[in-house]
């Protein structure tokens, strides 16, 4: 097979990748764009986002307010130039999606409706009931079908970036259907591979979120930024980790402990209002506080033995019963569907058991506001990237917005780069292809490998991170995680594949994913060990205070032959000097 060559190749067909592909197809119709994804685009994890996407659209709101909420929510670790770009380009991106048919929920007068969300002082979250990510992804996917210039490689698994002379020339990838290793050339590559929640054992993330793009960049010498910041969502279903959206609290749902007490009032999140108070739910207060603080409060309640014991661990209750059937069915139907199906509870009449669950990586591939990485020709957008608009804690409903704004920006940057870049080196691509082909052939040959299994190593990695780099960490727990992961990387050399066939060999792809997860896990543990302060989602019990003197900066983890090297870069401050992060009182 000849090596296909595109001007721009996008790795990942979720929200960011499809937004980027459409941007190129619309604005640069002469440019050839490829989208390569290990799953069909509709399966990408954007599909599971529920609550909504933030953008200023109403008269009572302002871009500065959205920026301030995002920056204070980030515990001042977000780059403020990147946040200003996010909030100012968000409204047009959201309207664009409306023009592409996204079925946004509406006000009676036909305007787009918005709802309150955690950490936001004004209701500005656009939503499509509580299947916002699903509708956004399908609107983007269906719109992308209009463009003949978008060439898709569905169910192809990227195994490496091909680099030569200081720029990418494309990728190597396994076509899952045939199991063959191919090379695809490109003058510019955009990574849009999503997050890596699967490195933890208990996550809302789908099976495919294994940090593949992060690992590709890391191996190419690009640093992973702020990897110590891992978001635990406060309301996942016990057992499965299925997400119960923050929109449930945006609509007025409350969290109560075993005594029926709204315990968030004990954790510096303000005073509760009566449920029939017209101002309930109060913004930036109690249940509408930020996710990091709510998840930390859950752990404290558990330490006080005020959570409830269940077959899948301790939980608290999310009570929606006062909202009534009409509101629940109209505004958050999926919450009801999921609770009834997976825990046998109808939220109309009973509270839903919930607990903290790994949800989102604030960190990722180091990018700038043009979505560029330090490697010319390599770009990244969406959850796999860290630009950073999320800093130490992402606010709910900013990630869907981010993938639109920065997906489109990455497209423009990559298209410009491709236009100024000479032909790709087919020789380099063939060399890369041959190397990957050999590696996989050896791996699949009978007798290869030792006594380790993919499932066994994956499970050990998850345990190491959950125990060592969970909601609260300290030097000793993190050192332990670093040591364990170093050991797991050695053991990975002895991994044994029992499936030696070519067609849809999902054991092989799981092994390749595990290799990525080990790289990502290593970056998380070492970055967390090095940051001796507490900020946002990174809570060090041995260093409980925020330390702006030493750590108003982004960590940058570089891969080396041994442990990663951790470097730092100052946070960009434009108009919002670091301040105290207050909820419930401002």
């Amino acid at each position: 097979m000849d090596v296909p060559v595109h001007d721009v190749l996008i790795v990942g067909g979720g929200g960011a990748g499809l937004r980027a592909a459409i941007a190129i197809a619309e604005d640069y119709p002469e440019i050839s764009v490829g989208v390569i994804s290990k799953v069909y685009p509709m399966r990408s994890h954007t599909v599971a986002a529920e609550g909504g996407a933030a953008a200023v659209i109403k008269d009572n709101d302002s871009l500065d307010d959205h920026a301030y909420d995002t920056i204070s929510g980030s515990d001042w670790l977000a780059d403020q130039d990147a946040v200003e770009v996010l909030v100012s380009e968000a409204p047009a991106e959201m309207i664009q999606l409306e023009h592409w048919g996204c079925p946004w929920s509406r006000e009676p007068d036909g305007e787009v409706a918005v709802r309150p969300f955690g950490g936001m002082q004004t209701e500005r979250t656009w939503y499509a009931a509580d299947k916002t990510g699903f509708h956004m992804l399908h609107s983007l996917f269906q719109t992308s079908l209009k463009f003949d210039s978008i060439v898709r490689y569905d169910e192809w698994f990227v195994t490496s970036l091909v680099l030569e002379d200081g720029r990418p020339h494309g990728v190597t990838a396994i076509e899952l259907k045939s199991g063959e290793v191919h090379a695809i050339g490109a003058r510019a590559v955009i990574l849009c591979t999503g997050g890596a929640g699967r490195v933890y054992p208990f996550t809302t993330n789908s099976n495919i979120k294994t940090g593949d793009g992060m690992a590709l960049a890391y191996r190419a010498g690009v640093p992973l930024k702020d990897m110590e910041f891992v978001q635990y969502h406060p309301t996942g279903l016990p057992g499965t980790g299925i997400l119960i959206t923050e929109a449930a609290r945006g609509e007025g749902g409350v969290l109560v402990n075993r005594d029926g007490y709204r315990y968030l009032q004990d954790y510096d999140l303000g005073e509760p209002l009566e449920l029939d108070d017209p101002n309930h739910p109060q913004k930036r207060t109690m249940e509408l506080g930020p996710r990091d603080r709510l998840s930390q409060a859950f752990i404290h309640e558990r330490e006080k033995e005020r959570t409830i014991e269940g077959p899948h661990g301790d939980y608290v209750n999310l009570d929606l019963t006062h909202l009534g059937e009409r509101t629940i069915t109209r505004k958050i139907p999926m919450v009801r569907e999921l609770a009834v199906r997976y825990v046998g509870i109808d939220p109309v009449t009973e509270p839903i058991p919930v607990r903290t669950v790994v949800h989102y990586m604030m960190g990722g591939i180091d990018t700038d506001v043009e979505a560029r990485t330090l490697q010319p020709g390599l770009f990244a957008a969406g959850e796999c990237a860290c630009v950073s608009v999320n800093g130490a804690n992402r606010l709910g409903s900013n990630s869907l917005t981010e993938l639109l704004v920065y997906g489109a920006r990455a497209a423009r940057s990559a298209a410009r780069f491709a236009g100024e870049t000479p032909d790709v080196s087919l020789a380099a691509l063939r060399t890369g292809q041959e190397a990957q082909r050999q590696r996989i052939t050896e791996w699949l040959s009978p007798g290869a490998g030792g006594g380790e299994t993919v499932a066994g190593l994956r499970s050990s990695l998850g345990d190491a991170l959950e125990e060592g780099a969970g909601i609260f960490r300290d030097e000793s727990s993190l050192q332990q995680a670093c040591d364990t992961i170093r050991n797991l990387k050695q053991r990975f050399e002895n991994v044994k594949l029992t499936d030696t066939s070519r067609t849809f060999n999902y054991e092989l792809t799981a092994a390749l994913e595990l290799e990525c997860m080990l790289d990502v896990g290593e970056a998380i543990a070492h970055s967390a060990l090095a940051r001796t302060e507490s900020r946002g989602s990174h809570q060090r019990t041995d260093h409980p205070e925020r330390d702006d003197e030493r750590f108003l900066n982004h960590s940058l983890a570089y891969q080396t032959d041994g442990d990663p090297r951790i470097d730092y870069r100052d946070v960009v401050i434009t108009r919002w000097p670091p301040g105290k992060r207050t909820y419930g009182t401002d």
Partner: protein
Amino acid sequence: MAPTDSDLSGRPVVMDVFRFLPDEETEPRFQRYEIPYRDDDVVLDALNHIKAEVDATLSFRWACRMGVCGSCGMMVNGEPRLTCETFVNEFHPEPIRIEPLAHFPVARDLVINMENFMDTLPTVKPWLMPADPKPIEEGEFLQSPGELATYKRFSMCINCMLCYSACPVYGLDETFIGPAALALAQRYNLDSRDGGKAERANVVTSHEGIWECTYVGDCTRVCPKEVDPAGAIQMAKLSYATDWVKSMLLPGG
């Protein structure tokens, strides 16, 4: 989440799983697995237990495990189901027979080849063609909650292919555009912002389109997201027929 040793119910479940590796085998076969399960396990959990603990060579697609990505449709005791929404307890203690979705070529084990659908989908032009285009700066198109409700149901399709697997017409003739794609065309036809109905007519009303549907209704019965493709197709038939009658009565109008 796969069961762990500590919380298994102690009762085994028997799974008879379709196996086929076209590269190396001439005939499919069924492989029996007897595995422990937990009361709240779904069929997909049981398959993942097999893959992780018993037999890593078993191939199947899955991703979200919460009924929204559409990856994990299979035949469960002869019915097309999303395995992440189908509980083991529904069948226990009877054996559970797992096969790839009917009416599709098998790529391997439980993995179907759905390229025909992926190639057909763009032909119905499932994207918004604004009736009255305007620039982004002029803001959103207004759409009342009532107008939204007109098409919302048909916008809920997750492309899980269960309806194709249930459709007797598609089973006989894979050139039939099929329930999900036709429902999606109708979703856009019904959208108050859209003006593309006439442009979709060629394909939607072609021999492979709505008129091939014999209204058995199995697509609607098996749809896990209550999209009602059969209803969408009936509406499309009526709507395009009405357009045709009007065009006959009012030539040029």
